């Protein structure tokens, strides 16, 4: 038995997070997680500003605030940023930060891959936004339909940036998915069988599998389009037998699951936050977990509902309509599990995180109810590509995902920073955002029914959209003000928030058993788990804290357990800090982004990538010792 204080010191030593300039080599999951989250929120703010400017442009008929070029780039960038640079990275970042803590692990299993993923995401994001500031951002919509996005109708560099940046950034999503899946299956705390896993981790598991099945077709089709544009292939060229519908199928094969890739982790947050403040385990844990898996599976059978107006066969479309409606069941089951948990609670504590997720239930329900309407084919024909759809998916994605994410921000901020956020500001922020959001986006249902198509930079005087769009503008400003208060709350609380303590909410999951913020090694002892709500149940049994396992301190080491039952199986070495993930990310970026300038960069980048990979895998101290 090693002396305790000595053990702690050695753990601290081996898990030390590089500081200063060297912090760029850090691979600890919490460092990378925070980087993802902060970067993603910066993109969220940028894309939000674009949205406000678009609403301003639409607040009067024939408005000349911005040219059609600017508007088309803005709405394309708004969608692309929100989807690829905010929603997916932010849920991945939260997962990267929380999953090892929730599982009682010291890190993800592939920390360097994790760091590599972040730099890929960052480089891709900077290139895409750089292009907007240079006035040549993608401008054919985030869905980027051909032939409009093909070489003939979009000869500029705008679409090349889309195809290369998208395929490039999806590398980040894919590596995050891989490492999350393996982490979830291999390093859960001893005793944490799948049936005791926190629901947020279930959600991340579902999300990661979905990414693995959804993103490769997107990368593939982006590469097809890049090839059409750069080397003259004919995948989508009608004149040479190509077909524009191929793009639509491959894009939406990815595009529909994408929505749930964002929403499922958010559901997981709701399912985590509600039980904490309801002071009871969630009602129907198994049903909620299975519902998320079902959503993940069914979501791959819906993509044609984005193409109902492209005329497939009536029978074929009806099958997709039925599948689209079927998703109402697992979604509904979750909504009622949340309500049931509040209902069955003896006393709910109405703290800010709870407020955001409860608001989300209402908004998600509204979006969830217009969903089956859009699956009803003839109604889809009427409102497809109108503001009605815009309203629908903002209710689902902002209401169903952004609200829980902000709730999660208030919930986990104390764990990340060790400080509480202001409850008063949090509540002001919520009520403003909730009110503003409803004013802005409920109105869009209406303009959609009035006949306002999406993606128009202006409209005619006699179409009557002026007044509703002005109402939307007011709502959008109130919504933005609400979110700005949360931003201010974050900044102010970072310095002046009262200390949080280990477990300010009296929550049941493992991340609250360690200090706030957690030490670099997360847990002194890898905890042992006896139930799905370890901190509550340990307390009931009168135990001080979870019993635990020591790990070796010669290298970074965590405990490997079996995939189903979480039985300790092996001592698992994980990687040290390294500069090579950054070098590899930049080398791969040379391949992709260089191809925008000259194809010669492709082989150059490939050689650099090879060198980086060699460096990455060069045997270090721990390899030589036979680990």
């Amino acid at each position, binding site marked *: 038995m090693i002396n305790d204080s000595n053990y702690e010191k050695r753990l601290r030593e081996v898990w030390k997070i590089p500081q200063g300039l060297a912090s760029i080599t850090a691979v600890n999951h919490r460092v990378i997680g925070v980087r993802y989250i902060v970067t993603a929120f910066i993109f969220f703010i940028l894309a939000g500003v674009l949205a406000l400017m678009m609403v301003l442009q639409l607040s009067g008929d024939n408005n000349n605030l911005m040219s*059609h070029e600017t508007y088309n780039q803005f709405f394309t960038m708004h969608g692309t940023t929100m989807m690829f640079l905010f929603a997916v990275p932010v849920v991945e970042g939260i997962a990267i930060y929380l999953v090892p803590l929730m599982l009682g692990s010291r890190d993800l299993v592939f920390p360097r891959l994790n760091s590599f993923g972040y730099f890929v995401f960052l480089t891709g994001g900077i290139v895409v936004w750089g292009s907007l500031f240079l006035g040549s951002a993608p401008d054919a919509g985030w869905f980027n339909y051909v032939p409009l996005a093909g070489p003939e109708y979009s000869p500029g560099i705008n679409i090349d940036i889309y195809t290369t940046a998208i395929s490039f950034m999806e590398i980040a999503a894919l590596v995050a998915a891989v490492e999350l899946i393996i982490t979830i299956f291999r390093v859960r705390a001893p005793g944490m069988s799948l049936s005791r896993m926190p629901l947020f981790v279930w959600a991340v598991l579902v999300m990661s599998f979905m990414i693995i099945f959804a993103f490769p077709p997107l990368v593939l089709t982006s590469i097809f389009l890049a090839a059409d544009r750069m080397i003259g292939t004919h995948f989508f060229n009608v004149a040479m037998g190509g077909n524009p519908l191929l793009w639509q199928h491959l894009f939406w094969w990815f595009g529909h699951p994408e929505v749930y890739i964002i929403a499922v982790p958010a559901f997981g947050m709701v399912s985590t936050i509600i039980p904490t403040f309801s002071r009871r385990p969630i009602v129907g844990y198994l049903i909620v977990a299975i519902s998320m898996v079902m959503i993940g599976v069914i979501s791959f059978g819906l993509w044609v509902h984005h193409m109902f107006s492209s005329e497939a066969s009536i029978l074929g479309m009806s099958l997709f309509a039925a599948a689209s409606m079927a998703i109402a069941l697992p979604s509904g089951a979750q909504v009622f599990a949340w309500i049931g948990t509040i209902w069955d609670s003896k006393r709910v504590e109405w703290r800010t995180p709870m407020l955001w997720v409860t608001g989300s239930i209402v908004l998600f329900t509204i979006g969830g109810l217009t969903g089956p309407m859009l699956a009803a084919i003839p109604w889809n024909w009427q409102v497809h590509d109108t503001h009605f759809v815009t309203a629908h998916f903002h209710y689902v994605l902002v209401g169903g995902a952004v609200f829980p994410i902000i709730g999660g921000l208030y919930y986990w901020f104390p764990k990340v920073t060790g400080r509480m956020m202001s409850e008063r500001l949090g509540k002001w922020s919520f009520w403003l955002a909730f009110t503003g959001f409803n004013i802005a986006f409920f109105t869009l249902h209406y303009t959609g029914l009035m006949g306002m198509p999406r993606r128009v930079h202006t409209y005619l005087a006699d179409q009557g959209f002026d007044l509703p769009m002005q109402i939307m503008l007011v709502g959008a400003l109130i919504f933005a003000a609400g979110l700005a208060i949360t931003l201010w709350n974050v900044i102010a609380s970072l310095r002046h928030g009262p200390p949080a303590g280990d477990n300010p909410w009296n929550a049941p999951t493992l991340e609250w058993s360690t200090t706030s913020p957690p030490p670099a090694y997360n847990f002194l002892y890898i905890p042992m788990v006896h139930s799905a709500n370890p901190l509550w149940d340990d307390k009931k049994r009168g135990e001080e804290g979870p019993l635990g396992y020591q790990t070796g301190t010669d290298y970074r080491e965590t405990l490997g357990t079996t995939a189903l039952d979480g039985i300790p199986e092996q001592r698992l070495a994980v990687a040290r800090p390294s500069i090579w993930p950054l070098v590899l990310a930049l080398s791969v970026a040379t391949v992709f982004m260089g191809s925008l300038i000259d194809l010669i960069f492709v082989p150059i980048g490939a050689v650099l990538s090879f060198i980086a990979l060699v460096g990455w895998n060069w045997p270090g101290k721990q390899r030589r010792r036979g680990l």
Partner: protein
Amino acid sequence: MGHRIITWRYCWALLVGSLVVLGLGGCGGVLSLQPKGPAAERIAELWWFQLLLALPFLLAVIILLLLAIRRNQRNDDTPRRSHGMRMIIWGGAVLPALAMLALMSFMIGTLVDVTEPVNRAELSIDVEGELWWWKIGYSNGEETIFTANEIHIPAGEPVALELSSDNVIHSFWVPELHGKRDLIPGNPSRFWIQADQPGTYHGQCAEFCGAQHAKMHFLVIAHEREDFMVWLEQERQPARLLIEGDGNFSGQQAFFDTGCSSCHTIRGTNAAGVVGPDLTHLASRIDIAAGTLSNVTGNLSAWIVDSQQFKPGNLMPPMPLQPDDLLDITGYLQSLS
């Protein structure tokens, strides 16, 4: 924590607020729900049916949430029966399954009705999406005559539309008459509309198609059957080739000399360009530039001189004409009724 953060007053304010929003919005027409033809009518019925299905769920969620919140603000610790599982089973499985079954059945009925008209369409019209206007063709088996951005149809009967595009994807949509159908290059498709009464119905491209997607409007103009036949007969007439001494002869010559005819057709003359809209009966149209401008002298000359200021990116180059030529051309075009 005894915070009463959900106040009933707030909920009422939100409800009243939304009703006011709806009321104010009502100044413009809610075209999708004001059907003027059988297909749009059936679709609107589907909307009301599904709204009726959805509202109880929304109300149930809101009311249950509010009740749950009140319930545990009571602050008593006596053990109660758990209702959560029952809620999941009824609210999350049984009732939504029944609702989806009902919706699916109703939807299939509607789908069958709106896919094909009851009676066979006698008239078939070609609709081609251009950048960014609509090319409308009427064929009598021998020759096809073209017009732009106006689809004249007889009222009270179904009309078949042959939709196609040879550039990018557009989407044909007249909310008062039917849903939308995409015009996909390489995938021509057949659609139909019917207006029950004579009238003018607004249509617009609904699929993002590039720079001037926002300015790609059109009109469907329904006439009584006889009036339609008169219109069609009139539309079939070529323009008269003017000769020296005729009123607008100089305008016609200027039209040829300044290059207009390389892009535009005026049937009956040598102008046979196929890039831009057919102008044979330009003066009879309500709007120019796909609904962007009304068809009056000032707009017409301004458009000719610099169409790019109205629809930047459109295929018509600026025409820096001599004032006399411009006047002549405008006058000539306005004689093409």
